[in-house]
């Protein structure tokens, strides 16, 4: 290496000097030997000169670093037990942090390929309070696109819509965007293969084409170029693939779930799963509008233009701005530079908050690990006090020693970081093996690596410094004279104790968080749902995938219903559209209401036999039957809650209401049924916003999709039997959903259950780490006091007494830590209870669970912590009493 060459240069140079000196002395008449001796005498220590020359260069920083690293590595290898423990602790914590960070990174920080992003703006319709809304109607988009003097080109794309498509005879889930033909042009990108759809393909009625997302093309279609020209059935509709999207472009909303395909915006009514979209007179969908500014036009100018448009729209369509509820429009249009928006102006803040919350939680685990490392280093530092004082006495400076110790801790942290990356990588692979509904691209990129390495370095330096300083602050004489009997540290408030208390407190807090989510899961389970769950099974299919015409399909469904209804044990069966109790939020206007105000209701598509199958009790009027056809007047069965909330009476039969966006949709109430929990939870968990009503799919002019049946026997075997009946009709019919009602309800609890699991794992990890810390501290204290213990044992103390004296100290630490942790947990619960319970972010409502402060639960957490803590302390304490008194006295 470079350094080696310099080293040999120096040797050669000095050698040359010596020889010239000898020659000079010889020339002055001395014999060779004499000359050599004198030259050497004059020369002094060669090594010393070398050392000084090296120091003079000042380049020694690098050399010192290399030397320190080598020494540090040697010492760490020597103390392999300590090293393994420390690397494991850090690896777990850094691994957890890196895994969570790569998730956040994938969702929030990854860059999208967009050409010239500075000239791109996002345009939003405002809500009544003037904030950007997620809904921009197609009509408004057309108006915006007309401002060609401001915008070079304006495009619109829907938020990613969940759809299902048939591939290799299996129904797969996907998200598609319906976009305008100039979508890619506005972004300044080109398809990586094939082409994008053009204006002719955007006309209504044109054969539907699609452009596949690059990620989907590589993963699902294995990058096969022959996919272009193929026909794929999306939501049963045949769609021709004409191109592959640009690589590195994952979609308009880049939150990690890449868009699988783009279709022309006019195809939207066919693809949309929401009936309200399908039946709308014009395309009403949550649209994202982006435009490229004309050269020389500023964002401010665009804002002015859009202000004028906003005012004009209110003047021209006043009734559009009268809606209330979730998607109420307000006057005004917001223009923001695209680079300022991550997902949506209103969603960015909660998203960031969620991300920081996640990072904070894993950060807490890291804090435990770091304080743990610090504890271990402190313990080690104290154990090495003698070595340190010998070195100080030999003339090493304190600076050098601190440098050595710091090098060691940084090395440890880096090793931990590497272990962490491996663990994180392994953990994420395990995660990706699970079929998650949302596919997050968890690739480890430079940000993740930089994060992990930065974290390790900061950890090593910050948490190595205090122990290093403490370890080198020794009383030389005292330590060197010492024969093992040291003044016991009776101070309560030592760094070590504070660290242990902190670790225990954080673990308790994490476990407290886990209990909140467990409560939520339990609350959901305990909820009275108001409809039959036991023995109920469902089977969803979509005949459009098998190419049936609508009339054929109707017959097939009737046939399927008949077959399933006659299965042994089946008590009732019904057809419906969508999944049972899944509801769509719709704006309605109630007849006779004085102000014609728009309010929210939830619509459930049912069919004849629905209420009987799910045992939903009829209170007034009648339920759906054969009289309700597509050509008969529209009717609805409403819930008790809706009758009382919207009509103010118990028996609302005969009253009318309509959908707010369709003046011709007057619907008569024919029956009132008992309230159900539907998909949501009760007051304590989630605020019931919109009460549900039921309409018959037969009147919606749509095909059913699902058969539900109730059996007196096992629901799981009914699911299997139903699938057999489906195959008996036509093997090509795809199964979209086949499950029991109990499974469906369990699925709804997946998010809180997942949160509980994650927090539980982190809490458990924290507790394990904290107990390692406790173990180390006690083991160290015992080692230091082994002489004292030996004397006490020799004088007749029983091992019990010795153990209890150690246990008292540990119990104090664990007790204080648990107390602080419980206090913080209660504080967190009180904060959650005090929160309003619902926060509107413009896209959907995020509901916050308000936990109960359950003393038993808190007690359980405290007990677990105490047991683990005492167990961690017991092992080394027990070892102390096993020490033979003689040996202990002989102990150095």
């Amino acid at each position, binding site marked *: 290496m470079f350094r080696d060459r310099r080293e040999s240069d120096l040797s050669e140079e000095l050698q040359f000097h010596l*020889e010239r000196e000898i020659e000079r002395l010889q020339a002055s008449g001395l014999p060779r030997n004499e000359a050599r001796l004198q030259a050497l005498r004059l020369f002094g220590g060669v090594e010393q000169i070398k050392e000084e020359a090296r120091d003079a260069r000042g380049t020694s920083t690098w050399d010192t670093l290399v030397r320190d690293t080598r020494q540090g590595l040697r010492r760490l290898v020597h103390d392999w037990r300590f090293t393994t423990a420390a690397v494991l602790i850090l690896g777990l914590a850094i691994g957890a942090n890196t895994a969570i960070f790569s998730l956040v990174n994938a969702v929030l920080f990854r860059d999208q390929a967009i050409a010239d992003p500075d000239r791109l703006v996002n345009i939003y319709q405002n809500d009544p309070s003037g904030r950007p809304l997620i809904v921009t109607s197609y009509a408004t988009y057309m108006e915006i696109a007309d401002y060609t003097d401001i915008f070079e080109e304006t495009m619109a794309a829907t938020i990613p819509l969940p759809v299902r498509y048939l591939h290799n005879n299996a129904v797969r889930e996907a998200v598609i965007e319906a976009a305008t033909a100039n979508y890619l042009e506005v972004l300044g990108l080109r398809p990586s293969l094939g082409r994008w759809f053009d204006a002719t393909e955007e006309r209504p009625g044109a054969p539907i084409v699609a452009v596949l997302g690059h990620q989907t093309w590589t993963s699902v279609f294995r990058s096969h170029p022959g996919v272009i020209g193929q026909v794929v059935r999306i939501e049963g509709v045949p769609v021709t693939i004409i191109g592959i999207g640009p690589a590195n472009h994952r979609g308009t909303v880049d939150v990690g779930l890449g868009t699988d395909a783009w279709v022309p915006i006019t195809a939207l009514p066919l693809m949309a799963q929401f009936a309200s979209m399908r039946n709308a007179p014009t395309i009403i969908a949550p649209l994202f509008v982006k435009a490229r500014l004309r050269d020389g036009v500023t964002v401010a100018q665009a804002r002015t233009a859009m202000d004028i448009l906003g005012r004009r729209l209110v003047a021209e369509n006043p009734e559009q701005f009268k809606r209330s509820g979730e998607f109420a429009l307000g006057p005004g249009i917001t223009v923001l530079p695209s680079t300022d928006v991550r997902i949506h102006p209103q969603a960015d803040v909660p998203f960031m908050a969620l991300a920081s919350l996640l990072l904070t939680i894993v950060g807490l685990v890291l804090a435990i690990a770091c304080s743990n490392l610090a504890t271990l280093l402190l313990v080690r530092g104290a154990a090495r006090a003698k070595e340190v004082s010998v070195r100080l006495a030999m003339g090493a400076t304190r600076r050098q020693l601190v440098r050595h110790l710091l090098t060691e801790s940084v090395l440890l942290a880096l090793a931990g970081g590497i272990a962490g990356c491996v663990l994180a990588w392994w953990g994420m692979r395990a995660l990706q093996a699970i079929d998650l509904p949302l596919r997050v691209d968890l690739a480890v990129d430079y940000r993740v690596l930089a994060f992990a390495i930065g974290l390790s370095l900061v950890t090593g330096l910050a948490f190595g410094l205090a122990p290093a300083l403490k370890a080198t602050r020794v009383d030389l004489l005292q330590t060197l004279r010492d024969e093992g009997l040291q003044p016991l540290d009776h101070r309560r408030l030592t760094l070590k104790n504070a660290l242990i208390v902190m670790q225990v407190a954080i673990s308790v807090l994490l476990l407290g968080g886990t209990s909140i989510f467990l409560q939520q899961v339990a609350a959901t389970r305990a909820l009275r749902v108001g409809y039959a769950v036991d023995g109920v099974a469902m089977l969803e299919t979509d005949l459009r995938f098998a190419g049936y015409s609508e009339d054929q399909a109707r017959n097939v469904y009737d046939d399927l219903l008949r077959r399933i209804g006659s299965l042994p044990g089946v008590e009732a069966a019904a057809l419906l559209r969508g999944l049972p109790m899944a509801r769509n939020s719709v704006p309605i206007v109630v007849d006779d209401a004085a102000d014609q105000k728009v309010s929210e209701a939830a619509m459930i598509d049912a069919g004849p036999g629905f209420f009987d199958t799910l045992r939903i009790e009829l209170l007034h009027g009648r339920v759906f039957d054969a009289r309700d056809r597509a050509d008969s007047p529209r009717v609805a069965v409403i819930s008790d809650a809706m009758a009382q909330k919207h009509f103010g009476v118990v028996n609302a039969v005969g009253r009318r209401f309509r959908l707010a966006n369709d003046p011709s949709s007057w619907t008569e109430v024919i029956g009132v049924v008992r309230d159900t929990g539907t998909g949501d939870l009760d007051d304590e968990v989630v605020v019931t916003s919109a009460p549900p009503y039921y309409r018959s799919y037969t009147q919606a002019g749509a095909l059913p999709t699902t058969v539900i049946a109730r059996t007196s026997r096992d629901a799981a075997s009914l699911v299997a039997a139903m699938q057999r009946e489906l195959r008996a009709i036509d093997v090509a019919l795809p199964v979209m959903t086949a499950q029991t009602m109990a499974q469906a309800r369990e699925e709804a609890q997946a998010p809180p259950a997942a949160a509980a699991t994650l927090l539980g794992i982190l809490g458990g990890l924290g507790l394990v780490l904290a107990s390692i810390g406790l173990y180390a501290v006690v083991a160290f204290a015992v080692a230091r006091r082994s002489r004292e213990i030996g004397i006490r044992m020799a004088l007749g103390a029983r091992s019990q007494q010795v153990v209890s004296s150690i246990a008292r100290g540990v119990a104090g630490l664990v007790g204080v830590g648990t107390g602080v942790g419980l206090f913080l947990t209660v504080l967190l619960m009180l904060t959650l209870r005090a929160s309003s319970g619902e926060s509107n972010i413009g896209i959907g409502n995020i509901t916050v669970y308000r936990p109960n402060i359950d003393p038993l639960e808190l007690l359980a957490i405290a007990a677990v912590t105490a047991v683990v803590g005492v167990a961690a302390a017991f092992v080394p304490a027990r070892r102390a009493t096993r020490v033979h008194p003689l040996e202990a006295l002989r102990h150095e």
Partner: protein
Amino acid sequence: MSDQTDVLQGTLDLLILRTIALEPMHGWAIAQRIQQISNDLLRVQQGSLYPALHRLEHQGWITAEWGASENNRRARFYALTKAGRKQVDTELAKWERLSAGVNLVLQRT
């Protein structure tokens, strides 16, 4: 020997810079030259010479290059850099101030 003086730390830099200002020289020659020119009054210890050379090189005032010595052996030759030439003037001025100061003090007391 006893009337030889070890070169003061600090003034050595000036002496070295001044010596190699004329032509590039190797370490031994620099020591010899200083001794000769000072009529054997000044003696440069190897122990200070080489650290000083390396320090000056590190500061960028001199550069070193391998070349053939007067008796045709490989030797490291030191030469002034541009910055080194300026430094000679600075060091000279510093020295003159110092020696003038010292003289004044010695004359008064």
